[in-house]
């Protein structure tokens, strides 16, 4: 758990961080967001005392961070930054092993931990263990940076725009991986970004900062549906508010019963029916297109044209639009049909409800 109490940073006569109080509970994914220069990095770096606070307190668990020896404090807190800062003269394994080494773990335990983390981040141990940072791709380097931050199993992970410098495709993958790792490890994370979509995708709580002040600290959905003031409203942006909301909604929340071809309900229910094979996998959709003449059509089910329960509704909607169908099959891990989501379903309920 991390708690900031009246945290303030003043440079000369400029108040860069102004009386911020907030709490990120254990296992939560807290995101600090705000326009560039609003004090996000300064706030983050006061937590591991890279910058001394002018006023206020920071609690890590039950400890005031200023009461701990500073190096000891930092070894309990993982830290990953946009520029990564890998040590160019050390191999991937040596980079990941830094904090365990500082904590004087036995060598065998360090080796085990390095392999475990590389596995967790899909880094090929055989290929990459002894590579040097300059031989890595941007995505690989950033994975190593995050793995390094997690190496000594810290209580808290601080991340300052860690995916800001990688291409959008890799960023998505890294975000998914981070979410997976977070679910797996239940670390307390404080994550800085200026990208609202990233915040909405990752955060369990979002702190919106402006000119050093905390404007709103809430769950993502609340931030979207109950913005505290005009600044929040304008920062979220009205244009795609509906889509942003759907990015915090999941397919399983909208999932409906799917009607099979030839079942008793097939004739009574309007619209469309599914054909499944012997293993229960959907093969074909009858009807389900917008125009009447299309209703006779059969649509082959493909991998891309389907949804999983943990997919966001934003993505599901996007797939419906792209494939020009009013319905998507929802499939489980084995590919079996377990339900459907429909355009009517999306439109029939406001996502803020």
């Amino acid at each position: 758990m991390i708690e900031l109490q009246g945290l303030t940073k003043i440079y000369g006569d400029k108040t860069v961080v102004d009386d911020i109080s907030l709490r990120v509970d254990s296992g939560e994914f807290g995101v600090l967001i705000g326009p560039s220069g609003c004090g996000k990095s300064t706030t983050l770096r006061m937590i591991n005392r890279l910058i001394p606070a002018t006023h206020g307190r920071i609690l890590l668990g039950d400890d005031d961070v200023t009461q701990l020896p500073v190096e000891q404090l930092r070894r309990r807190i993982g830290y990953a930054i946009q520029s990564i800062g890998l040590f160019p003269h050390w191999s991937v394994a040596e980079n990941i092993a830094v904090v365990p080494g500082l904590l004087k773990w036995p060598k065998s335990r360090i080796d085990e931990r390095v392999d475990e983390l590389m596995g967790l981040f899909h880094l090929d141990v055989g290929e990459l263990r002894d590579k040097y940072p300059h031989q890595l791709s941007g995505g690989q380097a950033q994975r190593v940076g995050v793995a390094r931050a997690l190496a000594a199993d810290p209580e808290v992970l601080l991340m300052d725009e860690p995916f800001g410098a990688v291409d959008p495709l890799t960023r998505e993958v890294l975000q998914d991986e981070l979410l997976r790792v977070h679910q797996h490890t239940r670390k307390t994370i404080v994550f800085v970004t200026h990208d609202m979509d990233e915040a909405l995708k990752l955060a369990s709580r979002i702190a919106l900062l402006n000119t050093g002040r905390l404007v709103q600290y809430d769950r993502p959905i609340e931030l979207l549906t109950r913005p505290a003031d005009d600044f929040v409203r304008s920062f979220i942006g009205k244009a795609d508010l509906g889509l942003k909301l759907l990015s915090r909604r999941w397919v399983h929340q909208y999932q409906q019963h799917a009607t099979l071809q030839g079942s008793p309900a097939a004739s009574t229910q309007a619209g469309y029916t599914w054909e499944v094979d012997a293993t229960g996998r959907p093969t074909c959709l009858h009807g389900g297109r917008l125009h009447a003449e299309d209703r006779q059509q059969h649509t082959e089910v493909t991998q891309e044209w389907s949804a999983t329960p943990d997919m966001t509704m934003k993505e599901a909607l996007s797939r419906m639009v792209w494939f020009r169908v009013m319905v998507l099959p929802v499939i489980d891990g084995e590919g079996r049909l377990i339900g459907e989501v429909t355009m009517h379903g999306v439109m029939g309920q406001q996502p803020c409800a």
Partner: protein
Amino acid sequence: MSEERAWHPRRAGPFVANRVLLVLLAAALMGVVLLPFAAMAPNRLMSGQGVNVAVALLPWQWLSLAGLAMVLALCTLARPFPSRLARWLTLIIAPLWLLLALYGLGDYAFRTLQDASPAARVSQGAAFWILVFCPVLMIIDAFQRLGSGLAVRGFYTAALVAMVGALFASGIFDGLSIMQEYANNRDTFAAEFLTHLRLVGLALGPALLVGLPLGLLARRSPSARGPLFGVLNFFQTIPSIALFALLVAPLSALGEALPWLKALGVGGIGAAPAIIALIMYSLLPIVRNTYAGFAGVPATTIEAARGMGMTARQILWRVEVPLALPVILSGLRIVTVQAIGLTVVAALIGAGGLGSFIFQGLGQYAIDLVMLGAVPTIALAVVADFLLQILVSLSKPAGTR
């Protein structure tokens, strides 16, 4: 007709594959034809009569030189040899050329002096030096093109040095004037050589001891940086003779005032002012390179190190020093070569060293005595440069090589 086309560059790519080698070869051949290979003088104080290579060398010797030159000429071309083969051939032939030139000169001196007056002297001419330096440059160029590793270069160089050393040991050069000067100064040569090394060492040790922390200080404290570099730059602008001379008066006064210092050898002339001046000259490159080395460590790497809980000392020794070391050592390389050269001037204020032969020789108009000081100084500088270059390469961390 087809043969004619084969020689046309249209399909065969460039006609000349290695321009550097071609230029070096052309320079060597022109120099050898136009300049004297050796000089013959009736005694050590008279200037010699130039002797052309075809006269100085026996026919088999200069014919071999010419033959080797032909193969080198083929090595410059895109064909018949593939480029890798051409480079390796260069690495075999260039040293043969060099050794043959060395042997030829010694042999000429030996033959000529047999029926000349005992005072007569044979010394090396301009064409000889060209025949020494051009092959060396060819070898360096070939290694660069091959991209050979340090081990290969080191082994090759050691072998070449050993062969030249063997030629010396065989006594083939004993007829040469410079070796006669060496024979006359045999007792003092070793001593002066060691004095030279000692002066360089005594200057570099303290210069490193002071310069490395100053470089780090310049990195850590921007307010100290300006004045520090101002002072060091000022030292560097004082001409060396002037600096040596400027130190004589205060040091002799100091020596007079404090007899125990005088007992230690500190006085107006001798080693003390020389070492102090050398230290002052060495400081700027050492401090500058140390500063640049530390400044080159990425700020984000340091931030990451701090964020992970390394202590300031751990960051210095585990991160900053390893990453800055190659730059610091290149500073040491500059300073070492510079100090070896400047120490020559120190002989003027009685510090000794190889410079004493040079200034004695200049005083006596005995050019070969000058050579006895100059050639070992140059050799020393080249060897030190080479060794430190290896050290610089070795100090580059695996990840940044």
